[in-house]
């Protein structure tokens, strides 16, 4: 076992990541054996639908958690983006392409707001999240006059945006999502932004005293997070069509869970995009499998909660051993 852990390939990929992958595969096998008609493309496509928007939320929040912060306004922000842009689309006749841009912009705007308050005013991220969660819900509701918004169907003229998810049975969304994951991974590991975001999560003062403009980079993490929420909104409506004002917070926990499960540490400084992606797939598969076994979503929540506790505990123990 120890030997296995020392194997350079294992080290490179990360032991926890490999374990998580194993969990993912095991779950799939388990569901295939136990569930009705579980194996096969349709279930996977259905699970992917859930994984897309959740994945984008998780990718975004990975950056914020890497700085040692937190953002649990992402769910409501995603809904706000989808509602505002969708309302522009359906009620003001804004073209589809522009609506998608608006969605991303709304997300980025909230990200900027959160980031500014956290980095420049040192408001605790927890409180900023709480406030902007309320604000996002309120703004969405005011903007849409408390109406839910249904995005155009795939068959309609403006339904082309749905091919972002799939064309025929080909999961375009998966390609896009993985591409974004790769981009995020590159940003996090190969660029200045990522270096500083991770470093300031680990030791903010040391980075600041190195003459780095930490405010800028910290804010950037929140902007990335908000922007991702805006993109998540597009994938949400492409899969589920309708968004209702006043909600969205149910997805915060799952997004954060996916990210943390994958090995990103709440203490900041450690983040793994690959882990986040696997974590998200686990949650999405879980929710699909739970349904197939005729259980309710409740069990999914409980199992997710337990997996996160186990994953984080493993992380805590590993760290303690290191120090």
């Amino acid at each position, binding site marked *: 076992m120890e030997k296995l852990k020392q194997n350079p390939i294992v080290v490179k990929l990360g032991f926890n990541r490999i374990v998580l992958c194993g969990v993912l595969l095991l779950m799939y096998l388990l569901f295939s054996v136990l569930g009705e008609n579980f194996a096969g493309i349709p279930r996977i496509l259905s699970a992917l639908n859930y994984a897309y928007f959740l994945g984008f939320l998780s990718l975004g929040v990975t950056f914020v958690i890497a700085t040692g912060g937190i953002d649990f306004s992402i769910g409501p922000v995603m809904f706000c983006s989808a509602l505002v842009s969708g309302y522009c689309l359906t009620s003001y006749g804004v073209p589809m392409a522009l609506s998608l841009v608006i969605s991303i912009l709304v997300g980025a705007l909230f990200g900027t707001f959160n980031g500014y308050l956290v980095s420049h005013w040192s408001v605790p991220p927890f409180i900023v999240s709480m406030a902007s969660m309320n604000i996002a819900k309120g703004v969405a509701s005011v903007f849409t006059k408390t109406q839910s918004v249904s995005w155009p169907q795939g068959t309609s003229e403006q339904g082309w945006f749905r091919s972002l998810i799939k064309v025929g049975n080909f999961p375009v969304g998966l390609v896009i999502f993985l591409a974004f994951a790769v981009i995020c991974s590159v940003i996090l590991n*190969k*660029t200045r932004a990522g*270096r500083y975001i991770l*470093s300031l999560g680990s*030791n903010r003062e*040391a980075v*600041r*005293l*190195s003459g780095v403009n930490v405010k800028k980079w910290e804010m950037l993490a929140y902007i990335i997070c908000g922007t991702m929420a805006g993109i998540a909104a597009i994938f949400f409506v492409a899969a589920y069509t309708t968004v209702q004002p006043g909600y969205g917070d149910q997805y915060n926990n799952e997004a954060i869970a996916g990210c943390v499960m994958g090995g990103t540490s709440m203490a900041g400084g450690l983040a793994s995009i690959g882990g986040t992606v696997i974590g998200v797939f686990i949650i999405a598969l879980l929710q699909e499998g739970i349904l197939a076994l005729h259980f309710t979503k409740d069990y999914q929540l409980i199992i997710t909660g337990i997996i996160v506790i186990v994953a984080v505990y493993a992380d805590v123990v590993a760290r303690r051993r290191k*120090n």
Partner: protein
Amino acid sequence: MGEVILTMKEIDKSFPGVHALDHVSFEVRKGEVHALMGENGAGKSTLMKVLTGIYKKDSGTIVYEGKEVEFHNTREAQDAGVVIVHQELNMLGHLTVAQNIFIGREFKKGIAIDDKKMNEEAAKLFDMLHIDIDPSETMSNLTVGKQQMCEIAKAISHKAKVIVFDEPSAALTEAEIDELFKIIRDLRKQQLGIVYISHRMDEIKVITDRVTVMRDGTYVGTLITEECTKDDIINMMVGRVIYEDPKQHSMVPENAPVVLKVEHLNAGRMVQDVSFELRKGEILGFSGLMGAGRTETARAIFGADPKESGDIYINGTKVTINSPEDAVKCGIGYLSEDRKRYGIVVQKTIAENSTMATLEKYMKGLFINKRAERGIAQEYVDSLATKTPSVDQLVVNLSGGNQQKVVIAKWLVRNCDILIFDEPTRGIDVGAKNEIYKLMNKLAEEGKSIIMISSEMTEILRMSDRIIVMCEGKKTGEVDIEEASQETIMNMATREIS
């Protein structure tokens, strides 16, 4: 001097990479004040932490009141009567003085804590110690000195039989030190065993009965204070004569230009109207007691803390420094006293830490040029002789001295002309210390200008070309190395300001 109350025999303790205590022995008698001396990192604090159960010893025995004991935590030690007054204050800032003193053993009235009685008892303690502190004051509102007094009161309130003072005087004013000594003499009269850890030679002569000296984690010897001279002790502490050698004269040419000029700098209580000049190739020592405002001055110059007023000139040009970013742009680098908190990012590699201040130079388009980054890091690992298997090593795995070198490398990579070294050798073992000194001298020779903040007199005297002394946020003196001596500096450092 009474019978032996505490004996520590052949205590051995290792941390990963450091042999902190190498079979050290030590004893305390009733009614004596036993000084424990040694350079920083000699192992004094570690020994005391082993005694009070904070660290677990690897081997050796502790005999207390005739029985072999091993305390598993401070609570057990306290209950047995062995109490430590920590160097780093263990106070709970949000609680009151009395609440701090009686934490963990509150007086109770039914289920309620009897704060009134605690205040009374604390007041009695303070009366006994002749200290004027309101027990119901919130701890964080007190000055460092007062907080120290509270710690002492707390120790005494434990009905202690052995009290360890870990550098108690570092933050105290003369008057407060006198108070402290009065208290210690009282305690000695009551047949308590007292361990007194300090750097200050004068104090040792005044207050202690015996002196035990440690060096590099080993026991060097024990002397009767009355029978030895200051030099005897120093020789035992230093082991090498070189330490005692002050720099004889400044290495800086007369005509060296002024690179940094600070005028009337004000930043809170700890920096009041500080002005000085730094010349090219100079090592400017900043001396003073703990809490004198040296670090605060450095941080204000560096833009790490906001300043209220004052002008800074670099090479004669006035500059605005509002953030470390500005300072770094002006060519100033700052090596903090607390590396772990302010210097390095422990979860990152040597290479990543080395380019922390200069990353924009190691980019290939949008991406970090990792090869170039590793290259420059390797260059400095070689030139600073940092001991590490590779530049990809996480900094957390390095020893203190090597971590310090990584921080130095960070600023050298940046090519800063002005370097502020804040306690550059704190927590670094002696061998590495010498290397750091050599390095600083080399840097100065190469034309870098260095501000060195140090609490170690020998360090100040050995390294500085010129010395500025601070006390309570004000500059109280400036001497060239030729005129400097421990006495003159200490005099300035403790001068009461009218």
